[in-house]
């Protein structure tokens, strides 16, 4: 105790800080960093859960890059990302922007938008799957049929399967993005808008030159958050195409599903680990690039 007593105030603060940090540090080391490191090591090995691990060098990676399914899956993953992120952001911003101006039943409407976010992805996926069924079961095809338009194959066509899975994925994330956008919109002082109104600037200019630039921190957060979400898409795909995971001819299969298949259906753990490392690298690069491009200038 005497030792602690003799420390300077600064040193005491450091002791306290590290005592409190110890638990998360331990947690991250054991639960996050160690398995991550283990996966990287495993990606250079061959292992089927039962056998002994044997070193194979870069073989897993060579196999991966020459695997046409991997490139198909790679493309699918980026289609999810490149369509899903901008689409969901534009829709959620449009809703938030207008909802912000609505005072009638504001809280209720906001709660309704938030509801999908709280719902289980599995339940949602199965519900949408039912929507997509042919007549007389599926909701969408029933509507199409009733107005005389031919049925669409939705999940059963290589062309429309991926968008059909993307739609509920976008829809499920909207609630969260709307809430974040609204919080961002609320944090812009009303006097900014009033000053613009007095200056006689049009609402389009206000949106482009005031609202969106000031929402930049919010947008950066949501782009990164939503990108990571779409790059890791799994629940929707897995549940909406259970009988044929990955859709017709792998047309909906994302990277995570491929990893799952390789690991827990083919029991090729080393190969799965190599795919994981690739996914991790992609996530890292995409996040860093986005943070760099949209890096926030310090105001105030």
């Amino acid at each position: 105790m005497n030792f602690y007593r003799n420390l300077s105030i600064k040193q005491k603060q450091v002791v306290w800080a590290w005592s409190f940090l110890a638990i998360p540090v331990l947690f991250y080391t054991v639960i996050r960093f160690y398995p991550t490191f283990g996966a990287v090591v495993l990606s250079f090995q061959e292992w089927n859960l039962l056998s002994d691990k044997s070193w194979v060098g870069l073989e897993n990676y060579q196999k991966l890059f020459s695997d046409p399914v991997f490139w198909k899956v790679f493309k699918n993953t980026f289609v999810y990302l490149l369509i899903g992120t901008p689409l969901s952001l534009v829709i959620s911003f449009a809703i938030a922007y207008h909802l912000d101006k609505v005072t009638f039943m504001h809280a209720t409407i906001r709660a309704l938008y938030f509801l999908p976010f709280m719902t289980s992805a599995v339940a949602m996926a199965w519900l949408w799957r039912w929507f997509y069924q042919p007549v007389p079961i599926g909701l969408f095809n029933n509507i199409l049929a009733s107005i005389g338009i031919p049925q669409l194959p939705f999940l059963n066509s290589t062309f429309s399967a991926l968008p059909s899975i993307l739609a509920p994925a976008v829809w499920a994330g909207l609630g969260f993005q709307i809430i974040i956008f609204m919080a961002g919109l609320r944090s812009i002082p009303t006097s900014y808008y009033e000053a613009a109104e007095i200056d006689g600037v049009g609402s389009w200019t206000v949106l482009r030159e005031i609202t969106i630039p000031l929402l930049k921190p919010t947008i950066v957060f949501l782009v990164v958050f939503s990108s990571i979400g779409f790059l890791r898409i799994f629940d929707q795909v897995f549940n909406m195409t259970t009988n044929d995971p990955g859709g017709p001819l792998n047309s909906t299969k994302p990277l995570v599903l491929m990893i799952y298949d390789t690991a827990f259906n083919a029991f090729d753990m080393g190969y799965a680990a190599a795919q994981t490392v690739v996914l991790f690298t992609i996530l890292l690069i995409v996040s860093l690039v986005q943070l760099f491009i949209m890096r926030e200038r310090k105001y105030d």
Partner: protein
Amino acid sequence: MATVELKKLTKSFGKTEVLHGIDLMVEDGEFVVFVGPSGCGKSTTLRLLAGLDEVTSGQILIGGEVVNNLAPKERNIAMVFQNYAIYPHMTVRKNIGFGLRTAKMPKADKEKRIDEVAEILGMTDLLERRPAQLSGGQRQRVAIGRAMVRNPSVFLFDEPLSNLDAQLRTQMRLEIKKLHQDVGTTIIFVTHDQVEAMTLADRIVIMKDGHIQQVGTPSDVFQNPANMFVAQFIGAPSMNMLEGTVIDEGIQLGAGPVIAHKNQFPVDKITVGIRPSALVPATGGAPTLMAGTIAIVEPLGAESLAYVDINGTMVIATVSGRTPPIVGDVLPLTCPPEDIHFFDTASGKALS
């Protein structure tokens, strides 16, 4: 340059009426300050003038034209906000130029105009900076610059100095007054600070609870307050208010002393008001108006304030700053007769 006229102006939010029929004529080039405690309706009036809120009834005329249904931009006014409302992501040049966006003039002219304004405000060197790199006073100047750039006919200021520290506030006050003398545009300025109102205004409009209490020049409202509210609101420290009753010799104060007065009053209950600055120690044979024990002395440097206990009623008097009396002393006080104000206790109105 324009006159501003308010005719029977009212404003309600839902069922609550917050302005109850305001009438006011502001001359071209005049500097008018609205002052009052929070919730008195001064900011509401300004927002109605700006067109940010809609008039419930009555009329607003700018330059003789009714503007009730005109959008803010069509009124040719400019407004400076309390939090400046300058955009953090734009440079000073872009901020000042923002008001010119919709102006139909060549780009070169716009740039020239921005440079002119920056010149007037002494911010030419700061044009390429962002607001985060500016001090509070400089940000305020950017806000004023953005208002000036369009050559509006009326400037509206909504408590523009409240966010500045005391020293800077005094300095900006001076700059705004100088600016008004230079450009001569009509200014309507809202503040809750009576010192700001006194120092800046050509005429002061004192408001309370959605009513105008008095309109007049600073010396007018200070020397001839229309009612007890104005008397106490203007001037610091506040005017001493002593309740009394009319008797044959004058007014018998509740605190004891009798104030001699010859006039006839229409009412019995009178409140006598004396500013602390007029209530001084009775020396050199001056007649003693009242006397009491000193309870507290507050030195202010040039002078000191003495809180004098007159039979249980506390009054504030001004005493010497160099040799203030000591707590516990009995102090005889006097006041020139012209500095004694009389109010009807019931209605609060001033009596002559």
